[in-house]
């Protein structure tokens, strides 16, 4: 038996480490190129954009509940989603009550994003979002199922006792005294319940909220197929999925949304719309190409090796 392997046999069994190195190099190199890759937003993202920007669905100045369930580990996708979402909310003066059921760190991570977007606004001489006046941080609630149930049953008692310090005051006060939540006591009181999540908390919420309030989700690519299931059955009104969703949101923010038979939704042209989504989008393309090439090479080599025999 000859030990010499043919090129086809070799290509059928490329060492894992070679593939790993290629992937790492390609991803890194792509990051140094800044290109706005074109996108074609899908219906779920368009619906989400309409829900967030259309004045009828979400009136300017109203309050939404924003459940942020992601931490560093899904930063790649969730941070971009959160940034795009916050940019829209802040530009439309939408107040938000922030909470998390997934991880104790999630509120802190969310606060960092708010801070970053605030800095961006400050640099552009726009109004900075203030705690108490514009948003409150309700913090972390352990037990996703239980909390979602409790929120659906009775938002006010579910988050009772959470405090926030108004600007210029020394003592923290009950969040329901704040302008953000003063008119909210049930989930039905908010026009939209938004969930940015790195796990399946959106599913848990959908099951527990049972259609009491329009629900929008920004989920990771993994959760996409499952969430689309709920989107199709109308339990989720709009959804942005993964990095693709971010890139689509960003281009919708830049270009606005025109759909036949529906009112036009405005754009935010002239503002900082392209962010983390576009920064990573090219690298995603090159990595996917590598993957496709690897699969094709493996198959071609397999067929060729068979033919030789």
């Amino acid at each position, binding site marked *: 038996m000859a030990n010499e392997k043919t090129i086809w046999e070799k290509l059928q069994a490329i060492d894992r480490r070679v593939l790993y190195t290629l992937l790492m190099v390609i991803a890194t190199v792509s990051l140094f190129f800044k290109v706005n890759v074109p996108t074609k937003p899908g219906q779920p993202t368009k619906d989400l954009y309409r829900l967030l920007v259309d004045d009828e669905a979400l009136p300017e100045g109203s309050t939404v509940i924003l459940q942020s369930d992601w931490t560093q580990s899904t930063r790649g996708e969730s941070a971009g989603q959160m940034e795009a979402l916050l940019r829209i909310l802040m530009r439309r003066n939408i107040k938000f009550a922030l909470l998390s059921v997934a991880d104790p760190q999630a509120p802190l991570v969310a606060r960092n994003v708010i801070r970053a977007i605030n800095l961006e606004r400050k640099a552009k001489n726009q109004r900075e979002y203030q705690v108490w006046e514009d948003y409150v941080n309700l913090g972390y609630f352990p037990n996703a199922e239980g909390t979602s149930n409790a929120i659906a049953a009775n938002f006010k008692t579910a988050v009772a*006792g959470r405090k926030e310090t108004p600007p210029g005051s020394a003592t923290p006060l009950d969040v329901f005294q704040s302008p953000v939540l003063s008119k909210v006591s049930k989930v039905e009181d908010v026009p939209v319940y938004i969930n940015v999540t790195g796990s399946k908390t959106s599913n848990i919420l959908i099951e527990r909220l049972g259609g009491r309030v329009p629900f929008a989700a920004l989920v990771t690519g993994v959760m996409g197929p499952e969430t689309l299931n709920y989107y199709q*059955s109308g339990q989720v009104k709009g959804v942005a999925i*993964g990095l693709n969703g971010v890139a689509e949101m960003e281009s919708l923010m830049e270009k606005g949304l025109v759909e036949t038979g529906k009112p036009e939704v405005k754009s935010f042209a002239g503002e900082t719309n392209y962010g983390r989504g576009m920064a990573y989008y090219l690298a995603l393309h090159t990595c996917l190409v590598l993957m496709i090439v690897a699969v094709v090479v493996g198959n071609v080599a397999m067929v060729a090796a068979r033919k030789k025999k």
Partner: protein
Amino acid sequence: MQSESYPIIKLFVGVACTVGLYSVLYRETKFYRFFEHMFLGLAAGWAMFALWGETLKSTWWDRMVGSVADEGNPAVPGYWAWALLLPIGVMAYFVVSKKHNWISRIPIGIILGLWSGQQVQVWFTRYGPQMQSSMKPLFPTTWSEFITPLQPEAGAVYPAQVIGNLIFLLTLLSAMSYFLFSFETKSKLFNGMTTWGRWLLMIGFGAIFGSTVMTRFTLMIDRMYFVFIEFFQQGLIPLIGGR
């Protein structure tokens, strides 16, 4: 004030940790083992802290003992019955006893009981709407055009849509037939349907695989961003006198 050099130190430590864990891609070495054990230790330490700081203090202790009034906040009375949960939790530790290990089944039973009851509660909330949305119309309401036009009439069902809906229904039913375990049949139709069902499931799995790839790659790209852009380009190069 935070020290000025701290952010770069923190970045450096983070990069070291990333490289340490990535080394397992090459193979398991002492280097990886070091970071793995550190990781496990940190996680356990955090669990010990979060146990009280993030869970028990706010959800148990504060409710049990209440809080006194301070500026702007009314007093909240304590509910003493919460105290009963501690002995129940302690019962779990009897699992190490050879004689009384059955007592550990009480806290376990409560957790399982609560979970089981919830299944009954949420089952229809979860599956009812899915059943409803599977009931797609199977008769076209219009024959004006076969293929759904680009500007469809509101509410109309075109023949092409009906074909799609039939495929949907057939996929659903044949995939469901694959999961029937208690029927033995020689019927070619039924057996063919289950085989089809399995193949159709593979389409779903392939599509999920494809769309998951996005998240996984993005997270890796984000780490590369962290190492090469945040640490090297924005942190280290300015520090050593680059631009």
